[in-house]
């Protein structure tokens, strides 16, 4: 991957120091994940130029947007980006159409009407065009805001917790649109969230932020399963595998999917063969056996290798496994670790009790 | 240039300190608790002499006089509307006569306390000659006078100009002060080159001559008699301090002060 984002920023707020040095891929969704106050929004604002870090270097696909050593700082309005705020921030004095055209009128490249039409279609806002923003629901507003940012045909899309201000139902209303974006857009998206669900559903690359620093960054499954990151120890710890539908077993109401290194049986999914999906496996749903269990109700038993092992707190261990090419986490009791004599490098079988399909 | 700005700043400071002094003075008058107090409306041209007379009055009688300075017309309107003034020192004869008609005045209390003297004055030395020929010669852009529609000084100023035959010629150059104090400000700040003011405003009491700038003390023959008239109002009929003040205004002490400030004495 030649296209990349290089982002280095240093900001000193006294008590809080923001110090980030990241390289992110130039495509797919990079999710910045962390608790509030961890600096993820600051990072996004620095990238947008809404906040000016005194020391900073920012290159997007080869273009320098900021280089404090050479005194380069491209103001926000000259950066070819799209930005979606936590609150939709539509202009209340303009209709939906006028909001969509606000940025469009100001860019040099003639973005075709067809493009805008496609974006309107993609986000399902065609019926809202003549309305004023105060006549829209929260979810509708956020969809218009996303369309408004996309209409600019940006080189990078920045999204700051676009779902955080919405209730559960509105979130469910927007997530499918974000998934479609994911599949249809070929620009890098930086997406800030503190929701593990959104991480699992959207991220290709995951950046874990804490106390103004990036603790870890890398491909989603890799980063999710890193034992040196608090996330792996969380009760909700999970890994996400990209899979493809290969077969439907109608009699059993099952669907078989393939991942890098094997296949899984899942409850029936209404998706054509060949459809790419994401499967989430919670660490608490994975158990370990030393031999292939001959009689078990669990359908998904896969050979694996132990690649990492920690003593968790409260008698719990976190085991990192490799299944084919995919990383997997298992939360088991410390006693089991000892009884099984688990060591790094050991070959084992992993039983997956349950999975969830994310899209 | 710099000197001039400095001068204007000093003038401002001077006027400030003067007003502070006046305030302190009024406070001290108030402070004498046992004495009777009378509330007096005073025409603004009589500000300086009346301040001094009030001090002497207090020394001589133990009573005190609270002074309210302003245009005679304003005081008149206020009295008509029930203002609690007890003695009214007007700059003209007109308002006291009107008040008599409307029944606000104690019978037979009306008297002339001073004769106003009009001066054509400029803040610039040598600008106004002692014959007032500058009025016929012209060469200025603004001529300040008190508003003739209600201020007595404005009325006599118009009479003087009419007498000299320059009234209509000069009318476009008029700038009108609401009262004689404001007219003086227009001229003293040089915004108007010259103007008709009261002698009391420009006299140097040590020498008895015009203190600064240049001026022409206008002879009484050029205008109708400028009789500054006072009345005892019915509100003050029972107040010994009010009665005492009316009498004190006719005393030699008061007359000496009145003359010192450039007013004529009643005949």
């Amino acid at each position, binding site marked *: 991957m030649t296209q990349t984002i290089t982002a280095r920023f240093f900001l000193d707020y006294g008590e809080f120091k923001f110090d980030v040095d990241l390289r992110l891929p130039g495509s797919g969704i990079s999710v910045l994940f962390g608790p509030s106050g961890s600096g993820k929004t600051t990072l996004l604002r620095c990238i*947008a*130029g*809404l906040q000016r870090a005194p020391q900073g270097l920012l290159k997007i696909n080869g273009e320098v947007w900021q280089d404090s050593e050479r005194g380069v700082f491209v*103001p*926000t*309005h*000259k950066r070819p*980006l*799209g*930005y979606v*705020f936590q*609150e939709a*921030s*539509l*202009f*209340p*004095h303009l209709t939906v159409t006028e909001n969509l055209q*606000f*940025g469009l009128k*100001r*860019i040099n490249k003639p973005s075709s009407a067809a493009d805008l039409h496609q974006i309107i279609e993609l986000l399902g806002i065609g019926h809202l065009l003549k309305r004023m*923003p*105060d006549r*829209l629901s929260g979810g509708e*507003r956020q969809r218009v805001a996303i369309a*408004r*940012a996309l209409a*600019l045909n940006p080189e990078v899309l*920045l999204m700051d917790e676009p779902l955080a201000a919405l209730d559960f139902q509105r979130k469910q209303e927007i997530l499918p649109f974000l998934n479609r974006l994911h599949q249809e857009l070929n620009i890098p998206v930086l997406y800030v969230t503190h929701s593990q669900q959104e991480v699992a559903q959207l991220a290709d690359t995951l950046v874990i932020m804490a106390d103004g620093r990036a603790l870890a960054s890398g491909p989603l499954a890799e980063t999710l399963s890193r034992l040196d990151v608090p996330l792996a120890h969380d009760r909700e710890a999970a890994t996400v595998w990209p899979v493809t539908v290969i077969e439907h077993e109608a009699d059993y109401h099952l669907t078989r999917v393939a991942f890098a290194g094997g296949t899984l049986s899942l409850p029936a999914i209404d998706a054509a063969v060949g459809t790419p999906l994401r499967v989430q496996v919670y660490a608490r749903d994975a158990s370990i056996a030393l031999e292939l269990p001959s009689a078990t109700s669990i359908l998904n038993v896969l050979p694996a290798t132990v690649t990492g092992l920690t003593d968790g707190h409260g008698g719990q261990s976190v085991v990192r496994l490799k299944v084919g090419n995919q990383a997997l986490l298992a939360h088991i009791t410390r006693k089991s670790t000892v009884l099984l004599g688990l060591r790094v490098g050991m070959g084992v079988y992993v039983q997956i009790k349950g999975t969830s399909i994310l899209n | *240039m710099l000197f*001039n*700005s400095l*001068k*204007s700043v000093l*003038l*401002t400071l001077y*006027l400030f300190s003067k007003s502070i002094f006046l305030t302190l003075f009024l406070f001290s008058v108030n402070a004498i608790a046992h004495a009777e107090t009378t509330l007096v409306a005073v025409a603004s041209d009589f500000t300086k002499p009346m301040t001094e007379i009030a001090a002497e009055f207090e020394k001589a009688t133990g009573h005190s006089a609270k002074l309210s300075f302003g*245009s005679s*017309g304003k005081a*008149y*309107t206020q009295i008509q509307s029930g203002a609690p003034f007890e003695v009214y020192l007007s700059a003209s004869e007109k308002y006291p006569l*009107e008040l008599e008609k409307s029944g606000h005045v104690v019978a037979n209390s009306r008297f002339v306390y001073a004769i106003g003297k009009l001066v054509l004055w400029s803040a610039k030395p040598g600008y106004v000659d002692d014959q007032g020929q500058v009025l016929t010669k012209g060469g200025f*852009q*603004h001529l300040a006078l008190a*508003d003739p*529609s*209600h*201020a007595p000084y404005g009325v006599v100023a118009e009479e003087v100009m009419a007498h000299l035959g320059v009234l209509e010629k000069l009318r476009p150059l*008029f*700038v*009108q*002060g*609401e009262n004689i104090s*404001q007219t003086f*400000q*227009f001229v003293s*700040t*040089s*915004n*108007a080159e010259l103007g008709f003011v009261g002698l009391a405003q420009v006299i140097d009491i040590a020498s008895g001559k015009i203190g600064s700038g240049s001026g022409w003390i206008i002879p009484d023959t050029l205008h109708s008699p400028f009789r500054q008239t006072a009345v005892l109002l019915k509100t003050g009929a029972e107040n010994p301090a009010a009665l005492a003040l009316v009498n004190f205004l006719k005393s030699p002490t008061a007359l000496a002060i009145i003359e010192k400030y450039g007013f004529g004495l009643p005949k």
Partner: protein
Amino acid sequence: MLTSADIATLWLTCKVAGLATVLMLILGTPLAWWLARTTSRWKGVCNALVALPLVLPPTVLGFYLLILMGPSGPIGQLTTQLGLGTLPFTFGGLVVASVLYSLPFVVQPLQAAFAAIGDRPLEAAATLRAGPLDTFFTVVVPLARPGFMTATILGFAHTVGEFGVVLMVGGNIPDKTRVVSVQIYNHVEALEYDQAHWLAGGLLAFSFSVLLLMYSALKAHPVAHQLK
């Protein structure tokens, strides 16, 4: 009834107030914007200076203006050097004095409206390729419209109602500086109460209708829009 002199003062008043309002909006808008946005330590000083005419007696302001704009004052010397002569007793001087005196009535509503808009619309506009000036005219001005309305109406109405400063700086010259408030005063002082009533009643009705108009318009649009 109103005499032709009265009508002349009304017309003059409208001219002074109209021109002063336009000037106040031109000067007051950037000033209010700066005051609403700045974190400079001079903000407090500037706020206090702008608000000063609200608490100062008009005669104090008038007196200082008379000195400053007079032949010996710094402003007077400047205007003289520029070939404008001195400002007191002129229509221009009256407008200048009115601008200073009524400025807080324009700046304060604008400042409040600008502050209510907050950072977000400006940031949103910046991410949509709008430069600062572009943003000001296409986003801030429409969002602050109720503030502009209040500022315009209050600025105009307050200038119409102003008396003390005008009296000091204007010199009460018919057709040049004699505005309606001074004319009313003249009528009262000259005991022409009938004339005074006509004008004063008219002014009262005018002021009331202006304020009524403003408040009913503002009911429809509160101080500033919130972003949706």
